[in-house]
């Protein structure tokens, strides 16, 4: 296998820079997911995204080149900042094989409505490690898939 094709996983969190309330954020997230699902399917990238306490958390997995290219695009996105890379490493299996980009946890507007649901995702960026963020994403993904 070509070295650039080796399966890699990248995990990061970042600070939301989208102005406006939860509804505006929901709309942005929907847009991001739509674009991601299209681009990622084409690039053989899978992963999951969550939003909580003002931060995005995301895992991207796929052939190294594809993950790097996707991440580079995401890095240039002004809708978030302070992107903190928690892990970028080879992996033998995909954690989200069925998701070109799955959203896990509550959307901001729902979280607002039901108050505090988002807290249950256990996502606290200040104490986040790559493994914990990945576990959180994965745990929520399992719930979602039922």
């Amino acid at each position, binding site marked *: 296998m070509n070295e650039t094709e080796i399966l*890699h996983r*990248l995990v990061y969190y970042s600070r939301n820079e989208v102005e406006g309330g939860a509804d505006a954020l929901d709309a942005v997230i929907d847009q991001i997911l739509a674009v991601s699902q299209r681009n990622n399917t084409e690039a053989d990238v899978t992963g999951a995204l969550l939003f909580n306490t003002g931060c995005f958390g995301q895992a991207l997995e796929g052939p*190294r080149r594809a*993950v*790097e290219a996707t*991440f*580079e695009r995401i*890095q*240039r996105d*002004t809708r978030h*900042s302070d*992107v*903190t*890379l928690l892990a*970028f490493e*080879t992996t033998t299996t995909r954690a989200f094989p069925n998701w070109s980009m799955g959203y896990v946890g509550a959307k901001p507007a729902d979280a607002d409505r039901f108050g505090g649901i988002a807290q249950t995702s256990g996502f606290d960026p200040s104490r986040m490690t790559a493994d914990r963020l990945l576990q959180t994403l994965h745990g929520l993904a399992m719930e979602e898939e039922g």
Partner: protein
Amino acid sequence: MPMPDPEPVVQPDAYLAALLELATPVLLADASGRVEFANREATALLGCTAAPAMALDGLFASCGIQGRIALPDAAAPQRFAQMRLSDGRIVNVEARLLPDGGAALTLADVSAFVREAERARRDPLTGLANRVTLHATLGRLLQADEPLTVLSIDLDRFKSVNDTLGHPIGDTLLRKVAERLGTVAADGDVVARLGGDEFTILKPGQFSQQEIKTTAKRVVDLVGRTYALEGHMIHIGASVGITQAPQDGTDNDVLMKNADLALYRSKAEGRGRFRFFEQEMDEQMQARRAIELDLRRALALKEFELAYQPQVDLATQDVVGFEALLRWRNAARGLVSPAEFIPVAEETGLIVAIGEWVLRTACRDAASWPEPISVGVNLSPLQFRSPTLAQTVLSALANSGLAPERLELEITENALIEDTDAVIALLNRLRDVGVRVSMDDFGTGYSSLAYLQKFPFDRLKIDQSFVRGMGENPEAGAIVRAVAALGASLGMKTTAEGVETEEQLAAIRLEGCTHVQGYFTGRPMAAADASALLTQPRRVAEIIEEEGL
């Protein structure tokens, strides 16, 4: 011999046949602009054939050619135009008036020249504009009195990426930086790479400082975001210097210099920042240059001196060592403050040669003292990057005959931040021959305890700011106590620096420091006086008085 008659001597049919086979693409049009004839080369070049009596414009349009040419007339018997073929090739067209009012058009494929010229305007690595293009555009805008902004951008830590990961990854990184800068630039901006890790954004137009701030912030933010490249996570930063025309100048070179001065300042202030040019920067830079010039001559002119400050053991009250302190006495400037010249020496790399002089001189002086006490010598982080440091230390010891145990190298944490393992290996090598090592200015900077674990320092020198602060705030006292305790449990001596009063002396004794160094227990003095102090300890006050030190 008479010239041949220019009148035709062959039949017109033969002309036409020759024209058809001519190696140059030729079109003939009648006075109304209809194509009468296209030779083989012209048809091949255009990639389509002319229908009979088709208009010239119609022919070009049907071939997918962009551009048009006006037909020549009596007023302008020759016309030129450049056109782009559907496949991207560039063709120069020249039309000449014929006696019957029609036109002969010759075509020339100049794609190769145009591409070559384009290449000469671009940086081959990133595809951005190069220095020549930047200057040309800048010159043109200034000529036209256009307001504009120049942002000079320099990457932080790029060199270490290049050194550790190699040039191919460094090059890939530069391309990514170029792309990111491209996303910051607006339409009409010129983004250029001037070489190495230097980039420039030229923004034509009138912008307020506030607007430019937003752009500069975006550059710093975007370039500073982590890169995932070839399986590596790479962190670099960007520093930006900004100048605007016409406010700051209206000359190419002046503006570029301004931007660089502002850039230099933003780097000096800690990288990952931006600064606007200010007129004072120029004067400050001139002053710095002047210091540099004098500093370059200082070694040869023997303008450096060493002063020695006593280090006293708190348990015995004995002077157990001296720290060698560098002094620069310049004929015109007088005694120059280290705060003024050390940064220049570090920046220019002169510190390596000066540091070596300090080391050799201090070893020689100490070797002549009547008591075998220690001499402390400061090493700059830059000296650790010189591959010959160990050799220099060993040769200073050998030449002076000083016992290695009497030499105490004082290093700051900064020396350990980069290439920690290599520096520690070097320190271990020196320790193996008996040289002592102390950690200077402890408590400032990161004060990473990890370093204390990685290398067994002989001594921690507590920064004078804590000793000074002890009177006013309890935290300073608590820090002195904590460091003293840390030293005690790690088996390291602790020296409190900057003790100036009896109260401070009592306080640091109480907190458990083992040694003291400061004005109260002895000011820096000349080498001969240090020596004299050791033979006649009681005369110290007089010596200080005489020297006026």
